[in-house]
């Protein structure tokens, strides 16, 4: 089981409210990603769930029990930290065994569970080493191992991949996804990287300044963003925002994703000079300087022949999102 419900929770540091009243349901077995720019409160929210910070008001319910004032250790949750937070003075074995030892399991049981976790995570050969003797990826696996042995109701991940290099990050990402498929345990994952969010999540929670902008599956957010903020945050390259007047639209602002634009020689809704053309083979990213609008990005066929300085047109070939003055979708 791993059902987490946040009811009207708020958090203030001194006089500054960083989380206004917030409600959220996390279902058992779900992979939920909190995403948002730095300072949006996603980590604070995670720490509130973990119990490392106290809520200022509201309730946290875990598996039907009120956990608002429970100590971290009583919530049945496990957490993986950005810095791994391994115990430097303990061997890998002891690191992984630590939560079991705290839970008062007997030695045989601990050994069995540690070996099991080490096997799943490919750590069997490293059990007697100290964390200082491991690579970044191995440390991350130890941190995960330490989390899974306790068989928690849910895993909490606080930007666990941000200290790894790009290649390793992709690997670890799929390892975590695999793990989720194996364990089927609720996972709450915090990241500022929308790619991680899109690739991993069952459900994405987009946060902005402590407020939930939108909750939904990756494709729901992609296709039906509720606000300009969500629309701009989800999707890569970023959505183009163009004043409504420039397209004879009544809306305050319209948004078109780069992949929904075609580059044409004649006609098109907008015309301008090519400011850059990046040929990636599979795709070409074209940046067009449109007078009166600014730069507009398009993601088009890899074989297209456009170059710097060419006069081109941009033709909308997909949905147009419309936003009002407050940035809300119309």
């Amino acid at each position, binding site marked *: 089981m791993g059902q987490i419900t946040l009811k009207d929770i708020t958090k203030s540091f001194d006089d500054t409210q960083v989380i206004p009243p917030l409600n959220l349901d996390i279902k058992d077995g779900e992979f939920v990603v909190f995403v948002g720019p730095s300072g949006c409160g996603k980590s604070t929210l995670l720490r509130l769930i*973990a*119990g*490392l910070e106290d809520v200022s008001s509201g309730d946290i319910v875990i598996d039907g029990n009120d956990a608002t004032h429970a*100590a*971290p*250790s009583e919530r049945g*949750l*496990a*957490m993986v*930290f*950005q*810095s791994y*937070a*391994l*115990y*430097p*003075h303990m061997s890998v074995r002891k690191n992984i065994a*630590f*939560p079991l030892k*705290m*839970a008062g399991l007997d030695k045989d049981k601990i050994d069995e569970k540690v070996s099991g976790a080490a096997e799943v995570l490919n750590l069997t050969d490293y059990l007697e080493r100290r964390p200082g003797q491991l690579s970044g990826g191995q440390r991350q696996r130890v941190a995960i191992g*330490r989390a899974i042995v*306790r068989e928690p109701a849910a895993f909490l991940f606080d930007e666990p991949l941000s200290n790894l290099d790009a290649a390793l990050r992709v690997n670890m990402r799929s390892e975590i996804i695999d793990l989720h498929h194996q364990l089927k345990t609720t996972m709450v994952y915090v990241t500022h990287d929308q790619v991680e969010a899109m690739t991993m999540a069952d459900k994405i929670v987009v946060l902005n300044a402590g407020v939930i902008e939108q909750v939904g599956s990756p494709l729901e957010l992609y296709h039906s963003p509720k606000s300009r903020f969500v629309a701009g945050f989800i999707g890569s390259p970023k959505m183009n925002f163009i004043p409504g007047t420039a397209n004879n639209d009544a809306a305050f602002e319209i948004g078109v994703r780069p992949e929904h634009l075609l580059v044409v020689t004649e006609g098109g809704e907008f015309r301008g000079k090519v400011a850059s053309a990046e040929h990636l083979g599979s795709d070409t990213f074209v940046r067009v300087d449109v007078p009166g609008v600014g730069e507009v990005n398009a993601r088009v066929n890899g074989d297209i022949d456009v170059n710097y300085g060419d006069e081109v047109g941009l033709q909308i070939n997909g949905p147009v999102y419309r936003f009002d003055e407050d940035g809300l979708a119309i």
Partner: protein
Amino acid sequence: MARQQTISNKLVWTVLAWILGATIFFPILWTVLTSFKTEAQAISIPPVMFDFDWTFENYETVQERSNYSRHFWNSVVISVGSTLLGLLIAVPAAWAMAFVPGKRTKDVLMWMLSTKMMPAVGVMIPIYLMVQSAGLLDSKTALVIIMMLVNLPIIIWMLYTYFKEIPGDILEAARMDGASLKNEIIYVLTPMAVPGIASTMLLNVILAWNEAFWTLNLTAAKAAPLTAFIASYSSPEGLFYAKLSAASTMAIAPILIMGWFSQKQLVRGLTFGAVK
């Protein structure tokens, strides 16, 4: 050229370091040398460095006259006892100040340090009276407590500095892993702070070992440590420099040997946090 310059640079620093070291060590060396001289050689003008008749008679006299082992044992109990008792109090205190600081934590730390700025003699009479009415004059118990209190600010400050260097994440991880506060301190914080705690301990043992105000004023016969042993060989009327040196050598030898063997820990602990 550049290489030559770094080598000669290194040489200069090494020589300077040795000169400084020798200068600091010289009084101790002189004391030890004097302890092997006769009283006449000890005051001879010009002084003799090594060229004298080495004798053990001062050590024999001191052995005969004083109960060295009792003073030694008292010193051990007082310095080690006060340090352990101090750590027992200081570890939780420093934990609280380093990891759950309040608005006034900094002020509390400064206030604690400020108690060290007052000359001890200023509180001599009240403390003497308190110890007396507790019936603890000339007892090791009183000295263990007093020395613990005297050095507590230093212990807390040192531990606080070490604890500040420990990432808070790791302690939070322990909490997530189900460790109670007690277990968090015992299994995670303390082992990680071992170098810091060890050097705090060593330094504090040395401080308590050498403390010569309270140890002299609150003891008479039974609980008098080595400081009193040295003081009993000092005399304004009569030249007992060689015997005084022998007594001093015997008093500092244990702590010097301990310091020698633990110098790696000590240096590491004292420079902890200085180089980041």
